[in-house]
Every structure is written in structure tokens, then in C-alpha cells.
């Protein structure tokens, strides 16, 4: 009995210790924000908040009311005393108060974040599929053209597929509705064809610009897409793209998708590494559409709120 109690107590201690997840007991490292097993957000995560805290909306409302009332009092005092600069200061306070009350973050932005996180189960399914099939190849974004037609991502079942592929029409591949596609004659020359995790983002970009991103020149891509990313509240200072040979380095300062990026890195590491997170995938899909070349994700990482990564243009690919 004593042995059983000792065992139970030790399990409880282990569960409550700072180095384990309180829901599944999985060991965690000190810098982890989410459990690598179940995805639970760890209580001891000590990262700096990268997005607006929940009560900031209330703080701004209080600040707005305070500024409005203060402006009214100062303005009234200036009016009664006949001091024009004081009256002007009061009017300025009224305008500032109105701005603070009316402009702050809308509920639609919060709903947007909720909608973003609701896509997590779908991404967990892709992760489970990659793990179950034990696919180690990186996904290849297939170039497409046309408004609203977003590149799909092909994940070869075998790394050698790329070297032995027989010519395969790009359009046929991009329009295929099959899940498993046969690319060559050998039994292992197959791949899985997935919708890009960043499809919705690319579609939102095309809707905002009202054009097929494939018609944009690569030299203008960063400016055009970066502007839309800022407008959609995705990134702060747009998007940076640098072409070096057949490698494209990208960088952006995320606003609203930082939590999703961090969480995906913890719970869907293979998806993030082989196919890319929604944001990385959106960049890869856009580049594939603009360049008309097959694009493979090389690497990506998030430091604070800055997402960086590199893409590889498969220029000599025979598919």
C-alpha cells in the first residue's frame, strides 16, 4: 500500500513539476511553450507576450473615456475663462478621446484569430498522415496560373522520385483531384497531393489585389504582397524577399499569426518542416505561381515575431 501511495505521489509530483505537461505528463524543456505530445499550452511558458493582451481593449476604452472627459473639462474651462489655447487643447483631447474609443482593435480581428486556430485540427490530420506514411521528403509547390487557383503541394513518397520522374504536365498535376498521384512507372514513384496550408491566405491576397498573383513580376512581388499582408494585419512591415541563385530568402514580422506559428512548431513539427506552416506555405505557393517554377521549402524559423525561411526553386526539375 505504501509503495502504491509513494508511486502515486511521485506521479503527481512529476505531473506538477515544471518540466512536464500537466495534461499528459510528457517531459518538456524549459523553453517550450507547448507540449510536444498533446499541444497543451504550458503554464510556465515565460515568453514575452507578442500579441495584444486580452484586457488591452478595456485599457484603451478606459483611456479613451478619460481623455474625452479630460478634454471636455479643459475645453469648458478654456471657453469659460476665454483662453483660446486651453480651449484648443480641450478640443484636441476630445478628438483624441474619440479616436481612442472608436478605432481600437475590432471584434472582427478577434474573430479572425479564432477562425485561424480552428484550422489546427486539419493541420494535425496532415501531420498524422505524414507520420503514418513515414514520408521524409519535402513538399513541392506546383506552379499554377489563374485567379483563385492556388498551387497544390506534392509530397513525394520517396526522395528518389525527383531524379527518376518521367515528364509530367504541370497543369495536369495542379488540377488533379487525386490524393495519391503516380508520377513515374516505378511503384515508389508516387506522391501525395495536398491543398496548400496557406491556400486561404493566398486567396485573400488575390481578393484584395483583385488579380492573379501569377501576373505580378517577381521584382514587385515583395512590395505588392507585403502591402496586402500589412492591410490584412498579418505582418507589420510587409514582406522581404531576396533571390540568391535558385534560393529565395524570405522574412516578415508577424502580427496575428505568431501564436499559431509557435504552436504548429510544437505539435506539427514534420508538417512545418516538410510542407510549411500556413504563412510559409502561402509564401511558397505565391512564389511558385509568380515564377512558374516548382518551389520546395528549404527551412523556416520563428524568432520572436519574425518569421524567416528559404525556398528552393527547382529549375531543372523534369516534372
Amino acid at each position, binding site marked *: 500500500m505504501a509503495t502504491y501511495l509513494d508511486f502515486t505521489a511521485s506521479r503527481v509530483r512529476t505531473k506538477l513539476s515544471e518540466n512536464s505537461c500537466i495534461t499528459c505528463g510528457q517531459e518538456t524543456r524549459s523553453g517550450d511553450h507547448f507540449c510536444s505530445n498533446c499541444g497543451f499550452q504550458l503554464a510556465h511558458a515565460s515568453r514575452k507576450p507578442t500579441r495584444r493582451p486580452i484586457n488591452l481593449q478595456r485599457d484603451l476604452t478606459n483611456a479613451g473615456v478619460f481623455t474625452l472627459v479630460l478634454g471636455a473639462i479643459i475645453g469648458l474651462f478654456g471657453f469659460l475663462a476665454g483662453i483660446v489655447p486651453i480651449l484648443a487643447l480641450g478640443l*484636441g483631447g476630445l478628438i483624441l478621446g474619440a479616436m481612442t474609443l472608436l478605432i481600437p482593435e475590432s471584434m472582427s480581428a478577434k474573430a479572425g484569430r479564432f477562425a485561424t486556430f480552428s484550422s489546427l485540427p486539419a493541420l494535425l490530420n496532415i501531420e498524422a498522415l505524414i507520420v503514418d506514411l513515414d514520408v521524409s521528403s519535402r513538399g513541392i509547390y506546383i506552379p499554377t496560373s489563374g485567379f483563385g487557383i492556388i498551387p497544390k503541394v506534392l509530397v513525394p513518397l520517396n526522395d528518389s522520385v525527383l531524379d527518376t520522374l518521367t515528364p509530367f504536365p504541370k497543369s495536369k498535376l495542379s488540377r488533379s483531384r487525386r490524393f495519391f498521384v503516380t508520377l513515374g512507372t516505378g511503384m515508389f514513384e508516387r506522391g501525395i497531393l495536398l491543398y496548400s496550408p496557406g491556400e486561404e491566405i493566398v486567396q485573400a491576397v488575390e481578393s484584395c489585389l483583385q488579380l492573379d498573383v501569377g501576373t505580378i513580376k517577381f521584382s514587385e512581388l515583395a512590395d505588392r504582397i507585403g502591402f496586402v499582408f500589412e492591410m490584412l494585419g498579418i505582418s507589420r512591415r510587409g514582406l522581404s524577399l531576396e533571390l540568391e541563385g535558385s534560393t529565395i530568402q524570405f522574412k516578415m514580422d508577424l502580427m496575428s499569426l505568431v501564436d499559431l506559428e509557435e504552436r504548429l512548431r510544437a505539435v506539427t513539427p514534420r508538417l512545418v518542416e516538410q510542407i510549411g506552416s500556413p504563412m510559409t506555405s502561402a509564401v511558397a505557393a505565391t512564389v511558385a505561381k509568380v515564377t512558374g517554377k516548382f518551389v520546395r521549402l528549404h527551412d523556416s524559423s520563428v524568432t520572436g515575431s519574425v518569421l524567416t525561411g528559404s525556398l528552393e526553386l527547382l529549375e531543372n526539375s523534369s516534372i
Partner: protein
Amino acid sequence: MSLRLERIEISLLAYAVIILCTVAALSSLMVSGIDVYVAAFIIEYFIVILATAPHYPAETRRERIIGAMLFVIFSEILIRYLIELLK
């Protein structure tokens, strides 16, 4: 410690600083007409909003509402001056 401000917070801070500077500058120039101050605030409002755009679409809509209201006041001041000039 790095302080990261959202665009809207930058807009509000910038506008607050500009209002204080405008009042200080105009009062030092002995400007006595309140409409001059209001006109300056209105022009500065549009400049600050444009300089710190874009915001979320919902925010943009609200900015436009405030902007439209302020523009009506600005137009009224201008029209009044024009009428006085024409008299």
C-alpha cells in the same frame, strides 16, 4: 525591454504629441482664432492616419467616419472664411 506598439497605438501617440506641439506653436504665435486650431487639428488628423495606415478594414471604416465628420467641420470653417472674403 523592447516596447512593441501596434499601428493604432502609434497613431494615437503621434496625434497626441502633434496636438500638444500645435497648441504650443500657435499660442506662441499669438493666434487667437479657435477655428485656426481646429483646422490645424483636422489636417493633422488626416496626415497621422495616412502616415500610419493601413489598419484593419473595420478600423479603416471607423477612421473614415471620424474623418468625414471632421471634414464637415473643416469645410464649414473654410466656407465661412470664403463668405467673409466675398462680402
